[in-house]
């Protein structure tokens, strides 16, 4: 490589790591997108860590309060958390501030809940006006702007599904069972109807993020879980044996709700027509079976960024802008050159405007 100093001779047999590094450079992977993947993994890992540590801290406070509860003491060694929280009253108070899960989070006095929880609640309680509905405001706004960002970035079950798809890749399973994408909207509608008539909350039982959080809480606190673990096993086996993201694509009521809300999302995946060679690497990279290179991925995209990372030609990018009128998120070559000219004259960020005027 040119970056090396000329004094050193190149090694006769470069290491495996070095070869991988140079291959990545040759492919001209967009570095920012690789950094974005790292950020996404960190966010997912911290969500999982929070889901584990919140019940652990709760149990720790319980055990600190009653040391002689032998039944729980046998299952949980307080020394694990002692090093972290003992002699630190501020930290102990801080650890009790954050409670709940991705379904309903309580940070201090603020409650943030899933929009699906609100839908479930208003269907089962048969009420359209309740203070609980306001708790979904922040996720609702985020979904309106960013689409199914919860699915790709915060959902703890997504991490489980990625493990499943890794297993699938290792085992070399090629099956691809597909349904209509409308199936999950049917699940959403029928579940809301069932909740309305039964008077109980249905989605809470089948929504994987809540099931994962609930099972983690039950296993940590009581050392025993419920049927949710079997449900998760079933869904992961779908993931391994049926098709990638089977549940997210065809059955998840939360995914259906976010897709509906994110129809007019502002963060959009765009194709640069002059760079795209229709190699369809992004199509095989997409976990959801979408086709990013066609520019028409609709509202299903969960912002995971796999396609952007897979594209060696940097033809896919994220842009902020309104929904195109023809539904195709394509930056045409002529528009790009025009935008480059205008940006050369000093104006910036006019790509979307040019695209809009060209569409009219």
């Amino acid at each position, binding site marked *: 490589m040119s970056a090396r100093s000329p004094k050193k001779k190149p090694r006769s047999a470069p290491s495996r790591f070095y070869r991988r590094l140079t291959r990545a450079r040759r492919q001209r992977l967009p570095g920012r997108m690789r950094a974005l993947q790292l950020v996404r993994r960190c966010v997912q890992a911290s969500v999982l860590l929070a889901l584990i540590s919140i019940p652990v801290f709760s149990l720790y406070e319980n055990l600190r309060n009653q040391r002689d509860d032998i039944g729980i003491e046998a299952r949980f060694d307080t020394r694990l958390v002692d090093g972290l929280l003992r002699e630190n009253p501020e930290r102990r108070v801080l650890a009790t501030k954050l409670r709940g899960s991705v379904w309903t989070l309580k940070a201090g006095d603020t409650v943030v809940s899933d929009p699906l929880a609100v839908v479930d*609640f208003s269907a089962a309680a048969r009420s359209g006006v309740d203070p609980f509905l306001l708790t979904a405001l922040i996720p609702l706004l985020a979904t309106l702007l960013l689409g199914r960002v919860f699915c790709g970035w915060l959902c703890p079950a997504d991490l489980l599904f990625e493990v499943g798809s890794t297993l699938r890749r290792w085992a070399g399973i090629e099956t691809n069972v597909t349904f209509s994408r409308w199936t999950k909207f049917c699940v959403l509608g029928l579940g809301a109807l069932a909740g309305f008539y039964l008077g109980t909350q249905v989605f809470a039982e089948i929504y994987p993020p809540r099931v994962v959080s609930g099972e983690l809480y039950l296993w940590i606190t009581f050392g025993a879980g419920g049927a949710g673990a079997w449900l998760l096993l079933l869904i992961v086996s779908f993931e391994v044996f049926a098709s990638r993201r089977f549940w997210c694509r065809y059955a998840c009521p939360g995914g259906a709700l976010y897709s509906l809300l994110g129809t007019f999302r502002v963060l959009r995946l765009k194709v640069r027509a002059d760079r795209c060679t229709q190699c369809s690497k992004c199509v095989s990279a997409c976990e959801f079976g979408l086709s990013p290179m066609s520019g028409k991925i609709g509202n299903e995209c969960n912002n995971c960024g796999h396609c952007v990372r897979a594209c060696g030609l940097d033809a896919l990018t994220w842009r902020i802008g309104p929904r195109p009128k023809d539904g195709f998120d394509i930056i045409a070559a002529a528009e790009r050159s025009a935008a480059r000219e205008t940006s050369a004259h000093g104006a910036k960020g006019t790509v979307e405007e040019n695209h809009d005027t060209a569409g009219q």
Partner: protein
Amino acid sequence: MTRRELLESLKNGLSAGCVGFVILFGGRALRRRLAEPEPAPTAQHPLRPPGAIAEDAFRAKCTRCMLCGEACPVHAIRFVTRIAGAQADVQPGPLGFKREPHVQPIWAGDDTPYLLPWKTACILCMECTRVCPTGALLPIEETREAIAASVRMGVAQIDRKICLPWNRRSWCGACLTICPYREKAITVDYQSRPTVHPEHCVGCGLCVEICPIRYKAISVLPPFYPDVGDTRAE
């Protein structure tokens, strides 16, 4: 008789038997059901945490976030799960295990909170009522009078067949000692034989937890009856 004929006759006999059984007994059960309708099955439910609204509204409003369980300082709040919960609900009894009358069938587990007083009793701190985001548990002030007025998780019931003083086996009074509303909810006579007064009992289950008898001479039953159960009807 060939095998096919045997199978045919077996099938006919079985189906005729089923039809006859339904005609003879099913019709009678149906007629009885129509004559005197049973109380609504939703009236039977596990012990709910303090401040719980009426059972139907509770099931509709509880969003299964488990915040009440995390807030409970003694982790008395458990969750109705389908597999593990049904096994954890059975109380040790003289003949192996005794199913508590309020235990739900396995299919009914829905991650709603409940209490098992013979394992861990409620200490009436009212922390769970404050964290509930949906109003399935209504907030209750942490004072003696407010709790006595609005908490009615269940009603304690004494099994006089195994209670020590009632059998003249020993002097006891443990339930009276631990009861937060002693001399009102539980009173003892001159031989320390306890009596529960349901109108004052909040159903915290501390008496169950402290009862020295292994099979618990006192147990908390959820308020099945409409006049007791709808403590906080909307």
